[in-house]
């Protein structure tokens, strides 16, 4: 059984406090009126951009004053969205890590994998964050429907009134239905997590394998439920931020991103626990398999990224291509940079079979992958909510630190609740002897 050390507690709580301060600072400095927002934009554009901006503004002024006013209001909304978006990206990222791990765990259970049972408790530890994460997400989404922010513009009846496309979708994009759906997904996932954990612990002491069989059945059921609800979740929580735009493989794309992040966290946590002297039965053969998954799913992510990008680029339909134009023009560094961190780096570093067994290679690649996938979610959410007013500054880093600290504390705390070796699992022996 894992024991939470004092240092870890201090570390995670200080991360949370620093993060909370950062988030608070973000909310405090966000503009509360159009005038404040104008002042912020003016002070920001003193640098090299001054000439371009003033020309733009002059041009707009000449055309019509009304447009300039609505532009100011637009920028004001974007700036006031920023702390909310920073909070949302981080909350969603850590929640999805835990959800991706849950999917990975269910796949191991449903496929009766022989190599992974020694890692079950590590995965269960990470999915321990699922419930608190769900609570945070649902509260956040309810706050959105209460018009505390303008992240989901389709929640504003005034916007819907003047927008034909959103109006046509208003049957689905409806605040109450949206929350009901979110509760439905979260309930389903958390129920699976609750019962699979219960059966998993019960299996430790039971004499027959009935718990194992039950786990197998609910895992298969969960996977069918998950792949539908995960897709819908990605439309609801991420794609609907851009209510005009849609992509049919978006659910898969989000899935690939959370899946690789989840697997990476399993590998990192396993290495951490081993360095603390736990998990004596896990050896480099198991890590090798995790690293293979990190390598493979990174390529899978890139495949989906490119499939989505190339079809839209080639078809060049205005309402589709605007999604990538915003990202390429305003977000070119994070947009292209994430291809380096999420594909090229893991591809080249983890290609060699031997490197997949070396801890520091896995740790380095893992950290790069996690940063890259945070940026991936950042690129999915920020352009729709804050537009070109983005910056990875105090609120964003505060969000990462707060949810990171919470994640570390809850995950490690879950590990203390059960033995780290699911010794009653019928496949445990096989996993112990597993040799690549």
């Amino acid at each position, binding site marked *: 059984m894992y024991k939470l050390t004092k240092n870890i507690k201090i570390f995670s709580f200080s991360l949370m406090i620093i993060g909370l301060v950062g988030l608070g600072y973000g909310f405090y400095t966000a503009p509360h009126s159009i005038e404040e927002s104008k002042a912020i934009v003016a002070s920001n554009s003193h640098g090299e951009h001054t000439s371009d901006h003033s020309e733009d503004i002059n041009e707009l002024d000449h055309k019509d004053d009304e447009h300039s006013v609505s532009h100011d209001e637009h920028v004001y909304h974007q700036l006031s969205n920023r702390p909310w978006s920073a909070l949302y990206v981080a909350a969603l990222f850590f929640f999805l890590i835990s959800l991706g791990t849950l999917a990975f765990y269910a796949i191991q259970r449903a496929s009766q994998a022989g190599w992974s049972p020694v890692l079950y408790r590590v995965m269960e530890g990470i999915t321990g964050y699922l419930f608190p994460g769900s609570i945070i997400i649902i509260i956040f989404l309810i706050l959105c429907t209460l018009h505390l922010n303008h992240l989901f513009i389709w929640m504003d009846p005034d916007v819907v009134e003047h927008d034909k496309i959103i109006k046509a979708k208003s049957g689905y994009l409806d605040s109450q239905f949206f929350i009901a759906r979110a509760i439905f997904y979260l309930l389903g996932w958390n129920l699976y997590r609750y019962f699979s954990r219960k059966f998993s612990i019960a299996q430790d002491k039971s004499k027959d394998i009935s718990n194992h069989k039950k786990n197998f059945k609910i895992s298969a059921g969960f996977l069918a439920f998950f792949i539908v609800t995960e897709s819908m979740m990605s439309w609801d929580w991420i794609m609907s931020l851009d209510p005009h735009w849609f992509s049919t493989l978006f659910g898969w794309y989000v899935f690939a991103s959370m899946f690789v992040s989840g697997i990476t966290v399993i590998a990192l946590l396993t290495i951490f626990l081993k360095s603390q002297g736990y998990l004596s039965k896990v050896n480099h053969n198991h890590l090798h398999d995790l690293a293979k998954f990190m390598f493979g799913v990174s390529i899978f992510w890139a495949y989906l990224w490119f499939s989505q990008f190339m079809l839209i*680029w080639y078809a060049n339909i205005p309402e589709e291509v605007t999604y990538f134009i915003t990202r390429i023009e305003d977000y070119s560094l994070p947009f292209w940079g994430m291809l380096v961190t999420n594909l090229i780096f893991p591809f080249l570093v983890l290609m060699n079979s031997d490197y997949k067994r070396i801890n520091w290679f896995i740790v380095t690649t893992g950290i790069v992958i996690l940063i890259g996938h945070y940026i991936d979610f950042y690129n999915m959410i920020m352009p729709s909510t804050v537009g070109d007013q983005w910056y990875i500054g105090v609120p964003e880093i505060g969000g990462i630190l707060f949810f990171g600290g919470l994640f570390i504390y809850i995950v490690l705390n879950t590990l203390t609740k059960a033995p780290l070796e699911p010794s009653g699992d019928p496949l445990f022996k096989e996993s112990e002897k597993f040799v690549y």
Partner: protein
Amino acid sequence: MSEKTLHAIYDDDDKLLDAVKKIKAAKYEIDEVYTPFPVHGLEKALGLKDTRIAITSFIYGCIGFCFAIWMMNYIMILDWPQNIGGKPSFSYIENMPAFVPIMFELTVFFAAHLMVITFYLRSKLWPFKKAENPMPETTDDKFLIEIKFDGNEKELKKLINKTDVLDIKVHINKKINHE
């Protein structure tokens, strides 16, 4: 050249692996093992050097990648530019996304095919080559360990009989003697 060749025949890969370990432990030199399928862990038990085919595969992949870039540049930009989907082919970089599938496919194509050809060359295999395996059953369900030796036949046989062996055959090698 050793004067005698011993063939020990097994009917199971686990038995074979076990025997290989025992023979190696007794310091005998195993010349070759014939199996109907790749046996997991055999190369380690035999103490073979790690294969270098992986690095050749990487190099071939890089060649394929570069070849695809050159080929698409020549076909679509230099030789016969076409306007496809309102994207005139005047610049390689602006049309690059359309060429990525070709780059990917040719990388895989080169890596796979050239790796197989390298493997054939390295294993000295070519069309119409006569099979080298001493017993055709090794392509079906039998496993064979080949040991060439000079010394004491009895001792070696005794060692092999301790393993779970199906059959042992000893051949006297033809002497290559030009005296």
